């Protein structure tokens, strides 16, 4: 049986108020070790206040081939953006 430890993805929240962001990956035999290794590998320079670790095998990713079907339909829904609605200069606080 292989002794290669599974791969984990590490997400770090850099300061209060910001979302966790992908920092990188590492190998660990179990979740506790993944958490500690993440601390030792990815927060050596005060990069984080919170860590998530997820087994890489458990990440569900969108397929590149679906890019057009998934993301292009949003292109013409410009009314979702506030800049779609020009406001007269005299109108404030909107």
């Amino acid at each position, binding site marked *: *049986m*292989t*002794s*290669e*430890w599974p*791969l984990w993805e590490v997400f770090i929240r850099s300061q209060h108020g910001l979302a966790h962001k992908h920092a*990188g*990956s*590492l*190998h660990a*035999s*179990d979740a506790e*070790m993944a958490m500690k290794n993440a601390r030792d*590998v990815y927060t*050596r*320079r005060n990069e984080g206040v919170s860590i998530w670790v997820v087994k890489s095998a458990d990440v569900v*990713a969108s*397929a*590149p081939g679906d890019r057009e079907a998934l993301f292009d339909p949003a292109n013409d829904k410009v009314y979702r953006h506030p800049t779609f609605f020009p406001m007269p200069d005299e109108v404030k606080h909107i």
Partner: protein
Amino acid sequence: MYAQMVDTGLNKVVDASQMSPQEQAFQARIDADVKVEPRDWMPEAYRRTLVRQIQQHAHSEVVGQLPEGNWVTRAPTLKRKAILMAKIQDEAGHGLYLYSAAETLGVSRDDLIDDLHAGKVKYSSIFNYPTLNWADIGAIGWLVDGAAIMNQIPLCRCSYGPYARAMVRICKEESFHQRQGFDIMMAMCRGSADQKAMAQDALDRWWWPSLMMFGPSDAESVHSAQSMRWKIKLLSNDELRQRFVDQTVPQAEYLGLRVPDPALRWNAQSGHYETGPIDWAEFQAVLRGHGPCNRDRIRVRKEAWDDGQWVREAAMAHARKRAERESRAAA
């Protein structure tokens, strides 16, 4: 450089007329500076070349711990010891980030390490030179890391997303490495006669190997041309080497050290330094395994890996036992 003369497996640069529509679309995206991501389609030669390049780079970081590790137990002050430990630890981290980038291309880290130990892939030849006095630690930071940074900064813009992101992180961390090296050199050059002699001796031994790190001129190289089209190599070896020389010679002068090149002169017309000929026979010999430390470096890495086998196995065995116990308890 940390990855030298990476073989693309091709014997000529592929031009648009020989590409399939899929390959043409791929090249067009690269030309438009769109990053390639792991699940995107990519030509097999691109993938293979990247794996070779990234793993050479990763192995270089890992083997690169050893020449500095040779002095970590003998660092002359507690502060220098802490800095050196932190720096070598960064190299391990950089190896880890790079292996992770390679793993997104469908290879396993353990397989890459086996390839290194079997002598199937290279690491940077610079690490096959010995560290003989404390100033060598300064010279490595100043010259070797300086040369590495020169190459790595452009790679932050390379076409493969995970590699580019790893390089961004590495460059951020590397920024203190070169400075700590120069700081050691300054202390040595301002110190006793013995210390200054050590500093000169270190520069004498590391200067030429540092210039060789950039690799032979690749103006004519098919592999380099193809890698540049793929944007996994951004600048030519000679271009990078010239930048390095131009930046480093004034620093040596500041230290009051003599660059061991009698032909070195400033060319006011070109605005660059001219250097004497590089001994490429030495470079080729070290690459073939005849450097002073080739055998020791691989032996030490292999021993560390083999000695760690039972530890890695035990951790997995324990994780499996725990998972079984937990699933039994849940049932």
